[in-house]
């Protein structure tokens, strides 16, 4: 039944769905639209909607009259304009909804317009496509609104504890729902090497190089194998659950840390140069060294990262695990603290910052850029098995994997485009930007 101006609440029940595509259970709309107006020119936006979409007559509500708003909102013949908020809840006939959205998009004084929705708490495991649009946006696509609602609730509730098919991390970033696999995209993992005979990983390794004198690329630590697995572990591992973000990405394994887990900047620079020369679109650095409060980023890494971006390569690095929250929050490590390197924070299953995860204490690049699953992360282990590890080191390859998906989706994208897509695709969290940056990593 169409939800017009009349009789919406005659029977006292919940509002009807709007006509048009309705996508699955759990999504309800009131039929109204929420419109965000340019605060300095609110009347232009409303006039545009009046003349083109024929919205119902507008009643202004100012602060002191807010108590009346609920009553006004109930009236199907009235649109309500909250002047102090620069927002309006407008009534529109179902056949005018599309016109309203297109008008909103074209009218510069309208910042956003979207269907008003009913929100209920619901489980987060519904197998739905993840939202990719940034919020707010101009949209009439109810799929997107529904998905956004689900992700919002997912972020609030945390992913399912069920890891039978997918790790909690893949579920949280919605890598289990995308059709993208990172096919053909080269990702360099500069770490302690890899177990080159691990049955899950043998097919994803494109090339290897050791920058550690006297050590082969074979991983004698476990850190590197774990990180490679998170980027590109297979769709069907020897043993469930699936744990790799970009199953068909091609991994360049540069061993820059010894089997004891140590490495110097010179080795890391050499590994980065090799990765870029090999055509890596992404370099994943699950490594770093602590810096003090107020310490500036290393200029050499920053210059190198800028040159890498010019060549189409994005660098992501772990923010570091020096914190002990609460109350101790220590600054983002180097080289993640470079302005041109993506600094990755770690999240727990509850989608809150892990207690060890460093924060954006220092300015000038020392910010967190994005947050990803980094606690109790299952991935590959040397010897053909699996292990669960925690750290910003585990969060970082999730981000590298998503960048591979983005690069596959748009092979002509520049490095700057990939970074912009990564950040705008993240789901904003309620935690401080200092701790989570743009928010929870999301697969496209």
């Amino acid at each position: 039944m169409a939800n017009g101006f009349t009789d919406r609440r005659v029977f006292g029940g919940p509002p009807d769905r709007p006509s048009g595509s309705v996508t699955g259970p759990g999504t309800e709309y009131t039929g109204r639209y929420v419109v965000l107006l340019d605060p300095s020119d609110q009347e232009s936006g409303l006039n545009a909607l009046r003349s083109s979409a024929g919205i119902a007559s507008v009643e202004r509500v100012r602060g002191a009259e807010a108590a009346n708003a609920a009553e006004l909102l109930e009236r199907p013949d009235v649109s309500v304009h909250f002047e102090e908020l620069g927002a309006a809840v407008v009534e529109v006939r179902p056949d005018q909804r599309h016109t309203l959205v297109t008008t909103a998009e074209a009218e510069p004084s309208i910042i956003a317009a979207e269907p008003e929705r009913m929100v209920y708490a619901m489980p987060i495991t519904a197998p739905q496509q993840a939202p990719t649009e940034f919020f707010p946006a101009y949209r009439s696509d109810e799929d997107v609104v529904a998905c956004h609602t689900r992700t919002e609730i997912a972020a609030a509730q945390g992913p399912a504890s069920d890891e039978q098919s997918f790790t909690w991390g893949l579920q949280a970033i919605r890598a289990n729902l995308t059709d993208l696999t990172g096919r053909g995209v080269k990702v360099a993992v500069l770490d302690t090497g890899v177990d080159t005979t691990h049955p899950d990983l043998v097919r994803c390794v494109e090339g290897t190089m050791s920058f550690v004198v006297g050590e082969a690329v074979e991983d004698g630590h476990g850190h590197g194998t774990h990180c490679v697995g998170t980027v590109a572990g297979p769709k069907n591992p020897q043993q469930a659950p699936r744990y790799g973000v970009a199953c068909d990405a091609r991994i360049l394994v540069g061993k820059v840390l010894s089997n004891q887990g140590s490495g110097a900047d010179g080795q890391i620079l050499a590994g980065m140069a090799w990765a870029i020369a090999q055509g890596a679109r992404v370099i994943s650095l699950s490594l770093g060294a602590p810096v003090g409060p107020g310490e500036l980023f290393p200029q050499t890494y920053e210059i190198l990262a800028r040159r890498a971006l010019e060549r189409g390569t994005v660098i992501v690095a772990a923010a570091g695990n020096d914190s002990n929250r609460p109350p101790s929050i220590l600054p983002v490590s180097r080289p993640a603290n470079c302005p041109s390197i993506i600094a990755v924070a770690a999240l727990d299953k509850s989608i809150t910052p892990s207690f060890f995860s460093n924060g954006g204490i220092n300015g000038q690049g020392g910010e967190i850029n994005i947050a990803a699953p980094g606690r109790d992360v299952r991935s590959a282990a040397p010897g053909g098995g699996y292990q669960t590890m925690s750290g910003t080191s585990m969060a970082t390859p999730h981000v590298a994997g998503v960048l591979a998906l983005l690069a596959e989706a748009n092979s002509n994208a520049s490095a700057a485009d990939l970074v912009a897509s990564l950040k705008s695709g993240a789901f904003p969290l309620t935690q401080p930007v200092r701790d989570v940056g743009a928010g929870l990593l999301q697969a496209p």
Partner: protein
Amino acid sequence: MSESPRSAPVGVIFAVDPDRFAEVVRALRQAGLTVTSEQPELGTLSGTVTEDRLPAVEAVDGVESVDREGTVRLPPPDSPFQ
């Protein structure tokens, strides 16, 4: 005789002008740098130099940045946090 701190070698990394990489590296060597790795395509290199020669290598024309070389140390493999 024990080395004084001024003459102890320290690790350094550089970004230099990639368009005249060889020339700058040559000048750095002349200023006292021992090169340990070089990445001509990206214009970076690493090396060691005695503390008292640091101002001289920093002053080489074409050097865009000099940082003390840092070392990454992961926790041991059995540590729960990585």
